[in-house]
């Protein structure tokens, strides 16, 4: 691809941002907003082979291009941006500061895409800074006190981060003798450099103890911005590490140990901090922190044992994509849910929200499940000392994520974020699409790059039980909290309430039915008996019964006569015969009577007189 294409992909959002300053162009531009990241996405899709183009004229010499890793980053980042901008278009429809948001949003987009496409340190740093600073406006967008303090925190970290990163890049460039990132990556960088780079990118990544800015910022920013902040921008930190740190080349055991420890702490500390939050988006932010802890585990392992890197790289990329898409979907979903006005829509969206949440929590056969298992198997190659703990931590991270997701959803229920109410269904679409992509990731991934996908998808699908246990405990906790809140008795009567409501409902229906039945039950017999009385149906019944019995008897007689010979019937029996019969039968009866009496006497002893 010519450099122009790369430049276009990067500057197209910038151009749009510029055009947005003109009021006449705004309507059309807002409508075009989802298209802003499209060139970058197209580029990522079309450029399947590694590519490096340079423009020596720009600044200190501009190098742009794509390689296997950055292409994938580009694709999911662009996808996320497209979804977020589709949401932003509707989200900002009635916002007074929509233009400012749009401009900054597009600028951040441009920076984000730019840093991925950049191949030299200068461009990378510039793009990174553009993204970071533009995002400040996004965080501050609402201008309310929470946003202001979040933004303050954010900008503080950004500033420090940029400073550290700058130092790091400078040192790296010095030590490698090139401003090309690829060269730095291959060089034997000093420990300090690596440390600086790690901290600089780590701030963006939000790994503890550098995470402080992240959750408040995610909570404060408008939903589309949160989505990209959490999904795309923090991945820029990872991307930076992947691009600049000589992973798999040089071993930095101390760094690795630290990063790994930080990662482990992050996973669970984020949980502890997150569950205390009452805003859904902040909790989601903590969840991001926690997830980045997982990634930090991978990074730490790679730092310690470079041999593990080939196995770890695909996993980390996959995890990045997985988290970007799912978490983005979660944020968009939270917004979309909050924007809904109808009960049914909320119910549907609430159910849909469970999908990315479960994916994040590592449900088997989802990207989360594959990613985590793949990471486990990749870590086998790493430090043996850490391995059991890593495995345990990874497994438990599913639990942690589940809690955080549950907490987020619970918060969403009790304390939904502010959201515009103009076109709720339009906000649902990007969420649903992105959630679809997130769910389908295990399918899409090999299509994009089967080589990098292969080790991931070869892993086990993941275990259900952490998720299940998490859900269970979360539910229990929720129930307990709820019970605590409304009082035990009310709570327990609440538990039976659906049953009661159902039985009431049934009872009402039953009562209505019964009333109707009673009406019918009184009216029908009354009318029947009145008519039977007036029409004197009893008299008819007499005749009818005679006919019926006669017919039955006639049939029976005919049947009987068919068996016997007709001659017997036609000739009248003689008198003697007639007289004989009763005698016989009388005798017979007498004998029978004796028998019966005997039985009677036997059974009841002396009460029956003996037959003397």
């Amino acid at each position, binding site marked *: 691809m010519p450099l122009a294409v790369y430049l276009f992909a990067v500057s197209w959002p910038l151009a749009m941002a510029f055009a947005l300053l003109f009021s006449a162009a705004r309507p059309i531009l807002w409508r075009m907003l989802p298209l802003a990241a499209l060139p970058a996405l197209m580029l990522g899709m079309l450029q399947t082979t590694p590519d490096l183009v340079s423009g020596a004229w720009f600044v200190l010499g501009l190098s742009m291009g794509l390689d296997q890793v950055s292409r994938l980053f580009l694709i999911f980042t662009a996808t996320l941006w497209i979804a977020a901008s589709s949401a932003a278009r509707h989200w900002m429809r009635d916002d007074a500061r929509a233009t400012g948001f749009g401009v900054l949003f597009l600028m951040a987009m441009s920076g984000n895409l730019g840093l991925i496409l950049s191949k030299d340190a200068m461009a990378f740093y510039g793009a990174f800074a553009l993204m970071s600073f533009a995002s400040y406006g996004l965080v501050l967008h609402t201008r309310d006190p929470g946003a202001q303090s979040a933004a303050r925190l954010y900008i503080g970290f950004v500033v420090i981060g940029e400073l550290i990163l700058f130092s790091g890049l400078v040192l790296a460039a010095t030590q490698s003798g090139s401003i090309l990132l690829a060269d730095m990556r291959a060089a034997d960088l000093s420990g300090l450099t690596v440390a600086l780079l790690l901290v600089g990118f780590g701030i963006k990544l939000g790994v503890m103890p550098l995470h402080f800015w992240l959750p408040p910022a995610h909570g404060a920013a408008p939903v589309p911005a949160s989505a990209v902040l959490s999904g795309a921008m923090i991945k820029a930190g990872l991307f930076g590490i992947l691009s600049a740190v000589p992973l798999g080349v040089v071993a930095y055991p101390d760094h690795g140990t630290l990063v790994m420890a930080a990662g482990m702490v992050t996973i669970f500390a984020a949980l502890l901090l997150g569950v205390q939050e009452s805003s859904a988006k902040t909790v989601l932010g903590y969840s991001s922190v926690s997830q980045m802890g997982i990634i930090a585990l991978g990074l730490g392992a790679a730092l310690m044992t470079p041999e593990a890197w080939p196995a770890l790289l695909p996993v980390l990329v996959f995890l990045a994509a997985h988290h970007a898409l799912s978490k983005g979907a979660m944020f968009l979903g939270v917004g979309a849910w909050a924007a809904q006005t109808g009960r049914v829509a909320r119910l549907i969206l609430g159910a849909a929200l469970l999908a990315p949440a479960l994916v994040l929590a590592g449900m088997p056969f989802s990207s989360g499940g594959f990613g985590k298992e793949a990471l486990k198997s990749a870590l086998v190659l790493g430090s043996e000392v850490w391995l059991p703990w890593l495995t345990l931590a990874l497994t438990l991270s599913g639990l942690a994520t589940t809690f955080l997701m549950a907490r987020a959803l619970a918060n969403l229920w009790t304390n939904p974020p502010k959201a515009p109410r103009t076109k709720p269904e339009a906000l649902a679409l990007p969420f649903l699409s992105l959630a679809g992509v997130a769910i389908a990731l295990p399918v899409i991934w090999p299509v994009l790059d089967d080589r990098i996908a292969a080790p991931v998808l070869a892993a086990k699908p993941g275990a259900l039980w952490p998720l299940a246990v998490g859900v269970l405990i979360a539910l229990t906790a929720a129930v307990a909290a709820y019970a605590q809140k409304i009082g035990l008795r009310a709570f327990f009567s609440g538990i039976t309430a659906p049953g009661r409501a159902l039985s009431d409902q049934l009872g009402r229906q039953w009562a209505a039915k019964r009333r109707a039945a009673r009406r019918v039950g009184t009216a029908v017999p009354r009318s029947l008996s009145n008519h039977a009385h007036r029409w*004197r149906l009893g*008299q*008819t019944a*007499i*005749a009818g019964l005679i006919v019926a019995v006669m017919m039955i008897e006639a049939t029976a007689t005919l049947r009987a006569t068919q068996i016997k010979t007709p001659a017997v019937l036609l000739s009248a029996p003689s008198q003697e015969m007639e007289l004989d019969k009763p005698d016989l039968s009388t005798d017979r009866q007498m004998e029978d009577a004796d028998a019966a009496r005997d039985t009677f006497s036997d059974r009841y002893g002396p009460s029956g007189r003996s037959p003397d």
Partner: protein
Amino acid sequence: MTPDLIYGVTGIAVFAIGLVGALCAQDRLRRVLALKLCSVGAGFLLVVGAWRVPPASPDPVPHALVITGIVVMVSATAVALALIRRLQSLEAEDDD
């Protein structure tokens, strides 16, 4: 074609006419009449059954039975008619 056949069928016809009357008539007196016809019809059947081709004398038992039946029927009729009269009086009193 002997008298017993003719009168037997007659008896059944009379009984049937009485039955129709008993079932359909709505006037009290007429219902009594209808029942009385039924009884005559039943009497016919028994008398016919008793009949023997002359010169043989008929079977006396059914005759006795029919006489009994007639007396029973007149008793029943008398009671029914008494009821009717009493009811007529009571209903007439109410109408006044």
